[in-house]
């Protein structure tokens, strides 16, 4: 008995070590590159040398500020992401609510079709949109980008809203109707407020997806209209200097702010979901 429990304790200890090592590895792998990028962004050297740098400066931040190329990309990217997310959020929220009430044949197929851009590679979507737009005679970069970005943001909004609707009892809506509310009013004052966390989360996901997209945007930009990731990619292939490290730090700060904002507005737990046995 004693020998058995010793073996068991040893096995438990080995398991515990492996378990915690994997978690440590996960965190190290996620955090170390971020730290490296932050440190390198303050590197004073004019070339990419051995890590860590010995002298520090703000030269890469100055070089980023002075570069109108990035600035243009940022503005275009924000416009495209905002317009695409607005359109997708309105249409996607309505569609999610509509599909949750629908009982016609082909409902599943319609839902799968509307979600399909999630599964099709972005490069395929972008290339297809480029050929489609050129057949329609649309050569304006902004129009093409917005068309492509509605396509990729819509499924995120619809899927997240649909998931949040599952938890909302249809009986609330029915109760509002039986109390005399018009269907549109019951929808606007009962269902929509209850689904707002899902809608907000979907819109944020959609915005981030659009802002960060490369696969679709690479095909749809023109010489004067390009998004920030496309600008970064072009610069990275031209010369790999540390301006991009400075830019990375700005991205990291913006992401942290976004997460804090999302946590304050909706609560990260609500966004991720607590499940049946969640604590």
């Amino acid at each position, binding site marked *: 008995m004693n020998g058995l429990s010793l073996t068991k304790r040893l096995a438990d200890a080995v398991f*515990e070590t492996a*378990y915690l090592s994997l*978690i440590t590895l996960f965190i190290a792998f996620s955090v170390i590159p971020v730290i490296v990028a932050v440190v390198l962004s303050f590197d004073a050297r004019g070339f990419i040398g051995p890590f860590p740098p010995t002298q520090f400066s703000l030269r890469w931040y100055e070089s980023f500020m002075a570069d109108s190329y990035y600035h243009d990309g940022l503005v275009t990217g924000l416009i495209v992401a905002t317009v695409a997310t607005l359109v997708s959020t309105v249409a996607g929220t309505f569609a999610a609510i509509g599909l949750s009430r629908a009982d016609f044949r082909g409902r599943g197929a319609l839902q799968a079709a509307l979600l399909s851009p999630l599964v099709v590679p972005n490069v395929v979507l972008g290339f297809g949109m480029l050929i489609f737009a050129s057949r329609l005679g649309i050569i304006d970069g902004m129009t093409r980008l917005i068309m492509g970005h509605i396509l990729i943001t*819509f499924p995120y909004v619809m899927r997240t809203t649909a998931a949040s609707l599952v938890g909302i009892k249809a009986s609330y809506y029915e109760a509002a109707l039986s109390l005399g509310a018009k269907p549109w009013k019951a929808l606007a004052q009962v269902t929509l407020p209850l689904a707002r966390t899902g809608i907000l989360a979907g819109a944020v996901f959609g915005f981030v997806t659009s802002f960060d997209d490369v696969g679709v945007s690479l095909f749809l930009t023109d010489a004067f209209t390009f998004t920030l990731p496309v600008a970064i990619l072009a610069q990275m292939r031209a010369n790999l200097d540390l301006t991009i490290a400075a830019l990375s730090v700005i991205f990291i700060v913006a992401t942290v702010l976004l997460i804090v904002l999302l946590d304050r507005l909706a609560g990260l737990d609500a966004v991720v979901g607590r499940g049946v046995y969640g604590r």
Partner: protein
Amino acid sequence: MRRPGLTAALLWPALIIMAPLLLGPLLALGHESLKPFVGGRIGGNDAEALTFDNYAAIAAPEYVRYFLDTFRVGLISSAFALVLGFPMAHFIVRRAAPATRRLLIGGLVGTLFLSLIVRVYAIAMTFGPHGPLSGFSRLFGIASSSPDGAELMVVLGLMNTTLPLVALTLLGTLQNINPRLEEAAMSLGAPRWKTFFQVTVAMSLPGILSAGIIAYAFCISNLVVPMLVGRGFILFVSNLIYFRFSEVANFPSGAALSIVMMVVSVALFYGLLHLVRSQWQEAGK
């Protein structure tokens, strides 16, 4: 109390906006892929008869290689993501104190939100020739300058996306498994590892496979990671399609590749998900 009129009114905006955006590119790609290619001009030749030549060309070994690389590297990367992601999700759901839980979930969502280019750049700087972890590939007996070294970098780059995705997906799975079952197994004398594998992992298997399939779909459609760290040794089908557009302007061939890649991705994704679901429904779950 159902009102078909209202349901239809809710669906119309999405249909009006999405139908042309979904079908237009699809039809345009299908048509373009059947045109014969003439060098020196952008787009296929409209004057000649339609042909399947562009599809036949994809069956050549030099093209098939790109498909095989895509599916193989995607598989490796998704598998590693599951191995690392499951314990992390388990830790968050079962062990982490509320403050730690919130921090970890924030970190995961943040990693997912952080620009992919920024993350791949950070990976390249960390594991690259001057990076602090440049010796990492030697742990596996791989020279970082070799093709295998490039493949390792692509796997690492993809894992940066798949890890938070897998961990967040598995949070949902684990939160729906009753913790009492694990407690019961342990109070009956089962060692921790046995409880973990035979109760927790076994009960999460449908969720683990679904998370793996989602991660896989993300991997095989990637463009940026092979482009930035594959160094030409590892290129995915997405890169090939982009080259058809940017380097040689062979639109018909790029369109044929796009159609094939789209069919394969959609079939793989829905086929595998269907397989997982039907398997577990049959078992009486």
